[in-house]
């Protein structure tokens, strides 16, 4: 009897719940929770984005305003500046983190003595809370007493109180880029390391036999083979930094002026300080569609690279 019992017939024959019932029993709670806490609010936000509702006046009459919120958001120069600031952050943080992260991964992959231990040490910043650590960085950046200014002046001779990382229009964005790079380079490094370790040794051995130079091996084997992983790291960091909020909030709060006001900060101000709930919902939807669209296009490109 057992001889011709394929898995499916066993599954049908066993007592208790059918597989179909178990599948739904197992999956439904998760889907239900996501519907309740993610999708329902999202749909609500879509609805609100077409109204003039303000959350601080819950009993005021709510009117539909059609597409006016979207129109206003898209025509608001401040919001475009915030988008530009966000793009600026995303660009520089990704560039720095990818270059440093890949370089570190490449060096760690040389498997020097103690590399496992030092890899763990390097990983620590990314496990910490951006808000809690970001708050402390504000102390490190103090022009009069901060360690950062002291170290910079120690090596460059620039007087420490002559530059203010968080208070100056030109330096404040870099203050945030530095902290973000400090925190998240390990993340990129780890993914790159996974990529480098996935390259089989025999390819290098073949290249050695062909007398390919180290430089040639790096550009013809290492980089292309690790590229899908690097791109994946860029995708994850891109999505995360597009949403960047906690670190900016704690370091500069969007200031000085609005030089570091990224999209999330503008959104927070509109939604929870100006209480323009309808308008900020429209902005939120636009942001979501932008990330979602960009991520989708990017994933297509990533898949193409993977299939090569």
């Amino acid at each position, binding site marked *: 009897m057992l001889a011709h*019992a394929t*898995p499916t017939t066993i599954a049908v024959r*066993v007592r*208790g719940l059918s*597989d*179909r019932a*178990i*599948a739904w029993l*197992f*999956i439904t*709670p998760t*889907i239900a*929770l*996501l519907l309740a*806490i*993610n999708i*329902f609010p*999202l749909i609500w*936000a879509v609805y609100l984005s077409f109204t003039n509702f303000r959350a601080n006046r819950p009993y005021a009459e709510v009117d539909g305003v059609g597409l006016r919120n979207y129109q206003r958001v898209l025509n608001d120069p401040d919001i475009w500046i915030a988008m530009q600031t966000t793009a600026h952050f995303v660009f520089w943080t990704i560039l720095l983190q990818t270059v440093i992260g890949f370089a*570190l991964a490449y*060096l760690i992959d040389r498997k*020097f*003595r*103690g590399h496992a231990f030092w*890899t*763990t040490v390097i*990983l*620590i*910043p990314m*496990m*910490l*809370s951006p*808000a*809690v650590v970001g708050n*402390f960085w504000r*102390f490190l950046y103090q022009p009069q*007493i901060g*360690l950062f200014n002291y170290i910079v002046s120690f090596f460059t001779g620039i007087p420490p109180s002559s530059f203010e990382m968080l208070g100056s229009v030109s330096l404040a964005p870099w203050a945030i880029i530095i902290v973000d790079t*400090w925190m998240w380079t390990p993340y990129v490094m*780890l993914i790159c*390391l996974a990529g480098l370790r996935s390259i089989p040794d025999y390819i*290098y*051995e073949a290249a*050695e*036999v062909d007398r390919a*130079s*180290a430089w040639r091996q790096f550009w013809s084997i290492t980089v292309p083979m690790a590229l899908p992983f690097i791109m*994946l790291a860029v995708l*994850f960091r891109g999505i995360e930094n597009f949403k960047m*909020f906690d670190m900016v*909030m704690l370091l500069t709060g969007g200031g000085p002026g609005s030089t570091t006001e990224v999209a999330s900060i503008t*959104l*927070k101000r509109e*939604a929870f300080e100006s209480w323009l*709930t309808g308008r*900020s*919902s429209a902005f*939120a*939807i636009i942001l979501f569609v932008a*990330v979602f669209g960009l991520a989708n296009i990017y994933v297509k490109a990533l898949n193409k690279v993977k299939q090569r």
Partner: protein
Amino acid sequence: MSSVNTTAHSVVEPTPTVKRIAGTIVILYALVTMIPLAWIFLTSIKSPPDSISYPPKVVFTPTLEGFCNLFTTRTRQTPDYIQSLPAPTSTCDEITRNRNMVIAGPSNYWPRFGNSLVIAFGSTFLAVSLGTFAAYGFSRFRVPLADDLLFFILSTRMMPPIAVAIPIYLMYRQFGLSDTALGMILLYTAVNVSLAVWLLKGFIDEIPREYEEAAMIDGYTRLQAFWKVVLPQATTGIAATAIFCLIFAWNEYAFAVLLTSGSAQTAPPFIPTIIGEGGQDWPAVAAGTTIFLVPILVFTIILRKQLLRGITFGAVRK
């Protein structure tokens, strides 16, 4: 790089010089990144004047003043009044008196830290349980639209937290969930469950189906097979997933600052609000930060081997 050599080990093995150079650069980088963390710890055991002296002090007399200030609220008093009080009964009392202050009561740090513990562990438990079931469901059964559902689950993470926070704020206000631990647990569970499903699906996919089939031939039901065969096999994966959910919930700030104000506030929004006389009391902030970071530091060191899978979201697997 060296030409083809004739020794026993692989030709791609880096030379000792290359290794030494690589090691030096990596170690230098690691030491530089550790400076801010070392400074947090050093500041936590400094006195307030030492913490803001310039040039920054590396050599100083350690004191527990920061920790004492972290755990208490204090009021300034005249030296005469302090003279009239009975002798200080604790070290903390003594430190406080030296600054012409008396302890007015305990600070909010421990309750906030407690909230962090309850919310982080509560949501991790829920997210991992739900995630394990869902991952098993997706891994073993033919679910209609499985790929779409999985992508939907992942896409819920692309939304900026502030964007979802607006309707959640309204919804929670409606249902009386705002500023409650339950509300935060549900929210973090929802955010984490997508990660949990993706990670755990990867782990469960790797457990051969034959194990369950063998158990079912022995007379186990599907549920028993899941419970007695699959779960024990997936323990490592479940543990790794739990760590990631825990780290997220422990570190989260945006939702916490918008949706909690008092009784359910967690430590991340609370620590930046620790102020002393004239601005932030940096030794106390550093003390609070140190205590807050210790659990995560310990986890990182213990579980470093499991980190990779979790960080790459399981997506790096072939």
